[in-house]
């Protein structure tokens, strides 16, 4: 454990915890202690045993299926020896949990107030006006605006971040000695994550609760933790204070996790260079662009009422223009709902273009003409987020790679098979496994299959829609390196759609930032990420976790303003005001706020 002198007794002391399922060990000897007001980060990738550890502490693993050994001492008692009835009083009373999915952990048919009141009533025995006041106090504590109003509302009217704050309020309801937070911000957008982490830290200072923080993101660890425990395959790889681990990581795996934190964004400067107004955004690349989008708009109708009349339109993408040069990678970043995926789908005709023009290799794509579409599809391919979901589970991977070649008549028969085997080798797979089904491969290997399938068409452009977001850190790095290598070899361009700044930093030449369907800033990677000009870009980037705990004090932070978020749903007949652009540096353009 950390060598920090601390006279306080540890709140919880776990020694030599071992968990096995059907004699298969999944946690092999974990020991740690957490002192009051301190945070221990439990770090690892999926399957490392980090969540099982937390469930074992709460004794939430099914008896008989899981075998738990070791000891978990809380308040001087060993939790593993308690009866189930005693344990129930510990759960939610002395230890509470916050889960990853705030969308599903609240009951959708009960008001927020009722759900909070239930917890308070059970654990603190309050009634009537006292109960009501306690609930309001809890909402105020987690910074929910207008608690008197909000307490009567249902969970669906709360945003993801607000729901997670309600979950935190519930977890704190009975002053627990310890909170177990299992990836509490993983499902949240980065700006919301920053707010949630700040809130957790503030509340922890007020209440002195010990926190066991489970995460896979070293940036979050750098922001939050006092001590770190790195797990892999059920074993502890490294354990120590956060400064030790970040300054002097001993295990190569820890080093790779730390290296995966976005570094450019971590060195953010917010001293804006004043942009020179230029009026319209020039679409520029050297030579003939592979892809050119001009004033692209995608809208979805919203129907309502008894007669299902058109009530409004979702302006998913509005007046977006950009271009991608040969062999270039343009990153499209933004939070969920910003319209970045819709752009990729519109280009490849999975969403219909409302207005504007898409040009592929100089030719305007006519989305009503099958021949024009077929020509576009030979040039543009797509890789999806979920490499398992985007492969047909019943089709062998060799056949999956060959099929597009046959459909488009590029190669047939033996030639197609040879090309498939060659492609499998190029992406680092054994061609002998061509007959295997997708489920026989790991997540990273499946994404390699998807890349090989995309390359089979010898496209000029590959749209990668969150292509590495679902992968574990180490695999993610490998896939990005593979994509960079293949780009050099095949001279292919990428439209890299992602919310993952570390990946964007690594692979992109230029970056475009999306906010509510519009591009607000576009330019070379180092300019946009290093010296962002648009207030939203600044807010987005300053929310990205720091790279080293010693930056905690020095980091500029621009937390989201309190104004309600814009709605992308506009009344029928709405026209967006014309955009005005400013130029900050060569090729770096910033949308001017009106």
């Amino acid at each position: 454990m950390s060598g920090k002198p601390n006279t306080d007794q540890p709140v919880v002391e776990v020694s030599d915890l071992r968990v096995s399922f059907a004699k298969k060990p999944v946690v092999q000897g974990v020991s740690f202690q957490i002192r009051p007001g301190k945070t221990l980060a439990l770090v690892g990738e999926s399957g490392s045993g980090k969540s099982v550890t937390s469930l074992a502490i709460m004794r939430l693993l099914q008896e008989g299926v899981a075998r738990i050994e070791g000891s978990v001492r809380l308040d001087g008692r060993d939790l593993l020896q308690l009866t189930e009835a005693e344990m129930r009083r510990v759960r939610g009373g002395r230890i509470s949990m916050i889960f990853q999915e705030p969308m599903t952990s609240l009951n959708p048919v009960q008001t927020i107030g009722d759900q909070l009141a239930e917890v308070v009533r059970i654990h603190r025995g309050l009634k009537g006006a006292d109960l009501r006041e306690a609930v309001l106090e809890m909402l105020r504590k987690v910074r929910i605006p207008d608690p008197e109003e909000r307490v009567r509302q249902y969970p669906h009217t709360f945003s993801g971040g607000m729901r997670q704050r309600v979950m935190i309020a519930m977890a704190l309801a009975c002053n627990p000695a310890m909170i177990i937070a299992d990836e509490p911000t993983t499902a949240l957008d980065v700006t919301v994550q920053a707010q949630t982490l700040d809130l957790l830290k503030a509340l922890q200072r007020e209440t002195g609760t010990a926190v066991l923080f489970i995460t896979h993101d070293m940036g979050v660890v750098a922001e939050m933790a006092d001590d770190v425990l790195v797990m892999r395959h059920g074993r502890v790889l490294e354990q120590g204070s956060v400064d030790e681990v970040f300054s002097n990581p001993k295990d190569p795996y820890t080093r790779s996790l730390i290296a995966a934190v976005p570094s450019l964004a971590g060195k953010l400067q917010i001293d804006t260079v004043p942009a020179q107004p230029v009026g319209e955004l020039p679409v520029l690349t050297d030579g003939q662009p592979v892809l050119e989008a001009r004033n692209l708009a995608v809208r979805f109708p919203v129907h309502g009422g008894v007669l299902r009349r058109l009530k409004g339109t979702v302006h998913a993408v509005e007046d977006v223009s950009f271009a991608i040069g040969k062999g270039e990678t343009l990153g499209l970043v933004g939070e969920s709902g910003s319209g970045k995926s819709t752009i990729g789908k519109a280009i490849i005709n999975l969403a219909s273009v409302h207005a504007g023009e898409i040009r592929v290799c100089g030719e305007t794509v006519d989305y009503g003409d099958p021949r024009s579409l077929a020509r576009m599809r030979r040039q543009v391919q797509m890789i999806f987020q979920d490499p398992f979901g985007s492969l047909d589970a019943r089709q062998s991977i060799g056949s999956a790679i060959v099929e597009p070649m046959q459909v488009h008549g590029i190669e047939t028969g033996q030639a197609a098979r040879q090309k498939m085997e060659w492609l499998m080798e190029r992406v680092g797979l054994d061609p002998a496994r061509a007959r295997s089904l997708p489920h026989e491969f790991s997540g990273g290997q499946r994404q390699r299959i998807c890349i090989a399938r995309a390359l089979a068409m010898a496209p000029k452009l590959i749209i990668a829609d969150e292509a590495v977001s679902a992968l574990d850190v180490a695999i993610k790095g490998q896939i990005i390196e593979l994509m960079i290598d293949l780009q050099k070899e095949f001279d292919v361009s990428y439209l890299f759609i992602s919310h993952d700044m570390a990946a964007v930093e690594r692979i992109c030449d230029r970056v475009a930032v999306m906010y509510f369907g519009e591009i607000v800033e576009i330019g070379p990677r180092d300019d946009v990420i290093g010296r962002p000009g648009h207030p939203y870009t600044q807010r987005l980037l300053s929310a990205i976790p720091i790279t080293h705990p010693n930056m905690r004090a020095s980091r500029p932070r621009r937390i989201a303003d309190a104004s309600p978020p814009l709605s992308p749903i506009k009344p029928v007949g709405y026209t967006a005001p014309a955009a005005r652009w400013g130029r900050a540096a060569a090729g770096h353009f910033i949308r001017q706020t009106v």
Partner: protein
Amino acid sequence: MTDAPLSPAAAAARPQTRWQFLKRLNLTTWLGVAIVAALVLCAIFAPLIAPYDPDAQNVILYLSPPNAQNLLGTDQFGRDVLSRLLFGARYSLTIGFLAIVVALIIGSLLGMIAGYVGNKTDIIVMQIMDVVLAFPSLILGLALVALMGATLTNIVIAIAFTAIPAFARIARAGVMAQRDREYVQACRAMGFSGPRILLRHILPAILPEIMVMASLWMATAVRTEASLAFIGLGLAPPTPTWGGMVREGFDNILSSFHLALYPSLAILLLVLALNLIGDGLRDAIDPRLKDAS
């Protein structure tokens, strides 16, 4: 290059390979399979195992009860009931099987198109299916056969027509569940045509459910065929059909009940066996449904 081993979550998400569900079939399902197989063999080898010509009349031996010469007795024309039953299996099985194959192909195609294209196509196709489904299959079959005449082809068409909506519905539901999955999106993004996506990618995913429907509806088809024959809209005499034999046996039900009894038992056995297979397949393919129904 290295890659992480399969995570437990990924391993749990493994789909079953094509024939793995066979291992989960329970004993009663296999009993059903055995009965149907035996009946199919009887039908195929009827000329070899039938003791007499099914149409040969023998005025001396008419209406004799089961005895050593005629194991199941004879009918009012002195024809051997056992021989007629064995040959009758040919018609019951053929009509049931053909009707379901026709209904499966047409119904599944309609349902898949409705589910994949959606919008107006979906509404129109499914409205028509609902209208067809609103009639009891016997009444609809009766009307069609009465209209077209009782030939083998017409009976098959009539029964197939009544079963089409069931296949359309299940295929549509399956397609709609698969349509927005990412692999279908990927296929569309690669420019695959609708028919290719439907037949090569979506159909294999929904085929097990369709096959369950087929085995359950084949029981219905056999029953409908027997019912049609019973009310006189089956194949023309002297063709031995089980439904027709029950009908003829009814004339002498008081004196010789065996004439109606044995064909009735044959129908019961076949329908029961097909239902056992259908239920067993459904339980094996989707274990969650087991207790729901």
